[in-house]
């Protein structure tokens, strides 16, 4: 008998079905994956199970049977008895999922008390459970969450989730907040515990590639609908629904031949638009749609045993993804002196002062003597996990931080000391695209005033006098330039007068890029500019970067934790760890034959595109643990 049986589940808010007619089962010891981009409704099922739907949301059809009992109809007390006991959850943000004021022992003890364990047995049970997640109980029990790393917090939460030997564990993006090597180790741990306890696992993720390796079955969700449901290897290997196919085609691969990514245009509709989409909700973006698609919801068609696709016959016969276009080789870097050169640049932060002004400890070294050259028109990627110093490096380059040692040259001019001369050299050559458009775009500025901010600055510098000099940009001139910049970054011109809060995530990031292009810099420094975006939007932005290179001849220093992104965009890669550059070389050479053990470990941490290859491998997990 299955642990969880969901039958025709529909969750509605304001007359629109946020989840529409969802059916699946989780058998004991099996892993079912719910995969979708943000807003697809993949977290809604967890909320249905926990009975924590937001106000205004309600189950309007279907049933959810947990161990045979109907959870939707169950009274809240009965449901609460199951929570944390037979039905447990692993959260997305481990660092914030533990009460910051309680030690691990206090919180774990509270959980065991809730499970009805007598006080005398709790200490021993905690030690055993923490040892099972490869934590040293003596080191962890009396610690507070802020004294632990994200990976350690997640292990504590996993230990708590499995300590009651639950029938079903719901893991909602359990590794999204973690570094890739930590992700690999946590995944290995969850899989081991789940297999050992024969627990059913509902694995919710945005990462199709990860799901393919973790799950037995995958359900691909789009706008609240299961568009494809089948064995993991089949869905990843040959997705049949046009959306699932394009989702796969949007992921930049870390191995195998590189093809041009074929992202979908536009973005997934939000809940507000569901009501106006009575038929197939994917139809407006579907490359093979016809007139019938928008009329009624398409049926679920079984194309193989245990493999169904919600589609009209036409979609299935047509191949969703267009013929793969191989990537053209990157143009050779331009002649002339390097745009940017770092010579042993370092950044050391002294320890913080205490109450009476004395410094404790040696401080931290964010970047330890990095040397790096970027030629005109060259795309260079910097990869590394959190704490590797890659963002600090970007801030040194831009002059937002002063190096404590070494030199920085831009266009051959020494800009190590951030004086007015250095500022003007940088202003002519470099611009930065920031990671989080939420923080990088002043919410009080309209789009045209944002993207032409540099012209406003020039105007402020030139003053309003009539002295000879470059022409003062007028309002009309600025709007004209803004329109050009929007066109270059693939944004419609009617956004000119919008404010950031009125834009989608992808649009904001394009505005962010457009602003950096305003003064026609020769090198863009981009810090994690796609990490907050869904894969299809990410693919759009990555292709935009290629277009900019081809059309403007611009260079790029791309900082990213995502090796696939760097491989797709850049021709040279720099690997950083603990503030040091450990490896550097042409992208294909480094990815095919990594020299440094850390690079090898990083590459092994990424699930391969071929779902039939084993991942995570025990030897890699062991070497990641040793690192």
């Amino acid at each position, binding site marked *: 008998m299955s642990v969880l049986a969901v039958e025709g589940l529909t969750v509605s808010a304001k007359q629109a079905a946020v989840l529409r007619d969802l059916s699946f089962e989780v058998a004991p010891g099996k892993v079912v994956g719910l995969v979708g981009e943000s807003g697809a409704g993949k977290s809604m099922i967890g909320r249905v199970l926990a009975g924590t739907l937001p106000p205004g949301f309600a189950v309007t059809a279907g049933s959810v049977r947990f161990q045979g009992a109907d959870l939707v109809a169950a009274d809240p007390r009965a449901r*609460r008895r199951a929570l944390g006991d037979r039905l447990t959850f692993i959260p997305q943000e481990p660092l914030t999922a533990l009460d910051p004021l309680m030690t691990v022992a206090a919180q774990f003890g509270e959980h065991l008390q809730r499970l009805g364990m007598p006080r005398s047995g709790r200490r021993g049970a905690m030690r055993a459970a923490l040892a099972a997640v490869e934590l040293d109980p003596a080191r962890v029990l009396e610690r507070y969450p802020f004294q632990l790393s994200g990976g350690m917090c997640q292990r504590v939460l996993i230990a708590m989730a499995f300590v009651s030997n639950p029938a079903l564990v719901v893991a909602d993006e359990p590794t999204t907040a973690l570094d890739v090597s930590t992700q690999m180790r946590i995944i290995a741990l969850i899989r081991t515990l789940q297999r050992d306890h024969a627990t059913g696992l509902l694995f919710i993720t945005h990462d199709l590639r990860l799901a393919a390796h973790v799950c037995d079955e995958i359900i691909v969700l789009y706008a609240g609908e299961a568009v494809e449901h089948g064995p993991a290897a089949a869905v990843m290997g040959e997705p049949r629904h046009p959306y699932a196919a394009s989702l796969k085609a949007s992921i930049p691969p870390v191995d195998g031949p590189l093809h041009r990514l074929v992202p979908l245009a536009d973005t997934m509709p939000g809940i507000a638009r569901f009501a106006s989409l009575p038929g197939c909700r994917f139809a407006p973006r579907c490359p093979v749609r016809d007139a019938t698609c928008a009329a009624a919801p398409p049926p679920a068609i079984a194309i193989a045993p245990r493999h169904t696709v919600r589609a009209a016959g036409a979609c299935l016969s047509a191949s969703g993804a267009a013929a793969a276009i191989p990537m053209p080789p990157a143009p050779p870097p331009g002649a002339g002196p390097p745009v940017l050169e770092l010579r042993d640049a370092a950044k050391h932060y002294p320890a913080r002062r205490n109450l009476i002004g004395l410094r404790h400890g040696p401080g931290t070294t964010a970047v330890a003597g990095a040397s790096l050259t970027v030629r005109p028109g060259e795309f260079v990627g910097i990869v590394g996990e959190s704490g590797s110093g890659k963002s600090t490096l970007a801030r040194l380059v831009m002059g937002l931080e002063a190096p404590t040692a070494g030199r920085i040259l831009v266009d051959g001019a020494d800009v190590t000391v951030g004086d007015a001369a250095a500022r003007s050299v940088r202003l002519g050559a470099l611009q930065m695209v920031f990671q989080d458009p939420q923080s990088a775009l002043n919410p009080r500025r309209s789009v045209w005033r944002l993207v032409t901010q540099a012209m406003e600055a020039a105007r402020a510098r030139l003053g309003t006098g009539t002295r000879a000099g470059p022409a003062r940009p007028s309002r009309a001139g600025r709007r004209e330039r803004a329109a050009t910049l929007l066109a270059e970054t693939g944004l419609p011109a009617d956004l000119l007068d919008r404010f950031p809060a009125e834009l989608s995530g992808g649009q904001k990031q394009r505005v962010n890029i457009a602003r950096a292009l305003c003064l026609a810099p020769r090198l863009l420094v981009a810090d994690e500019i796609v990490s907050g975006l869904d894969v299809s939007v990410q693919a759009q932005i990555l292709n935009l970067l290629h277009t900019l290179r081809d059309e403007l001849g611009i260079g790029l220093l791309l900082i990213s934790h995502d090796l696939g992104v760097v491989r797709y965009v850049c021709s040279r890669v720099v690997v950083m760890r603990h503030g040091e550059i450990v490896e550097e070389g042409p992208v294909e050479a480094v990815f095919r034959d990594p020299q440094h053990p850390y690079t090898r470990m990083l590459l092994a941490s990424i699930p391969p595109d071929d779902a039939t290859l084993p991942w995570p491998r025990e030897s890699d997990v062991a070497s990641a643990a040793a690192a």
Partner: protein
Amino acid sequence: MLLVALRILFFRLLVAVPTLIAVSALVFVILRLLPADPAAMSLPPGATAEDLARLRAALGLDRSIPEQYLIWLGDLLSGDFGISIYFRRPVADLVSTALPNTLELVLSGLLLGVIVGVAGGLLMFRARGGRGEEALDVVSSAMMSIPEFLWALLLILAFGVAVPLLPFIGRMAPGMMTPPGVTGFLLLDSLIAGRLDVFFSLLLHLVLPAVALAIALAPLIMRVLRASLVEVAGDDFVTQARLRGLSEQRILFAHTLPNAALPTISLIGVQAGFMFGGTVLVEVIFGYPGLGNLIVDAVRNHDLPVIQLVALVYCVLVLAINAAVEVIYLLVNPRLRTH
């Protein structure tokens, strides 16, 4: 734990020393801006210019301001707090009688205000999104718009005049003898002396002034606590606690409230300092023999030695209460404690 608390307290007080010196200098300089001559005012009408000069010399008023300040500071450190020009008594005597009364008043007001404020905050949080919260919100807005001394007058009108339930003048019933001073705190001394009648009279006289102070404090605590409760209730660890099957009661009191209390504790620290300011007029209105009455009398009579010392005592009190609240904050917040 205790050791940590003591260490923090020690450092806080160490840091407070320069502040106190700055404050004393500031007070001294401001008071020397005074256009009127305090010496002239304290002399009888028939005094001669020589009398005045003699008195000015005796009081040290003929020296330069930095000199006067250093002399005063030196006297202060050697335990000489000066003589009141107006009361013609040692300032130290005046302050040591008034100080315990003010402390009793502030502590009762603080206690009352915190209890009502925390209860109100919890009530508002429980009623969030409904009519009840709106009503409490309106009431708290209105309560905050009346300063302490007007509450004092309104309370006298309501419970002293219209419905005469409580006494509203002085520290105890007229005719009662002050219990022998052991601690200086009358409530304690009356208990020590076994005079329960005095004790209850003292307590009754404390009610209205303390309520006046508490009414001003409670709505602030209420609103800050409500806001932080709402914020914390949306945090991941609260969701996760719910997903572990904990009861709402347990979640509120074991997780949400302790985390939401942190900003409230900071607020209480700041507001407790302001409360000493609130006592000034409240004491005047209730004829309550504390520091407030003392400083207002001194201000009216340009009694500089009294103003200087009382102002300094207020600063010491504020710094002490801030340090105490900070220690509580640090003890509650492990992130700061285990640094």
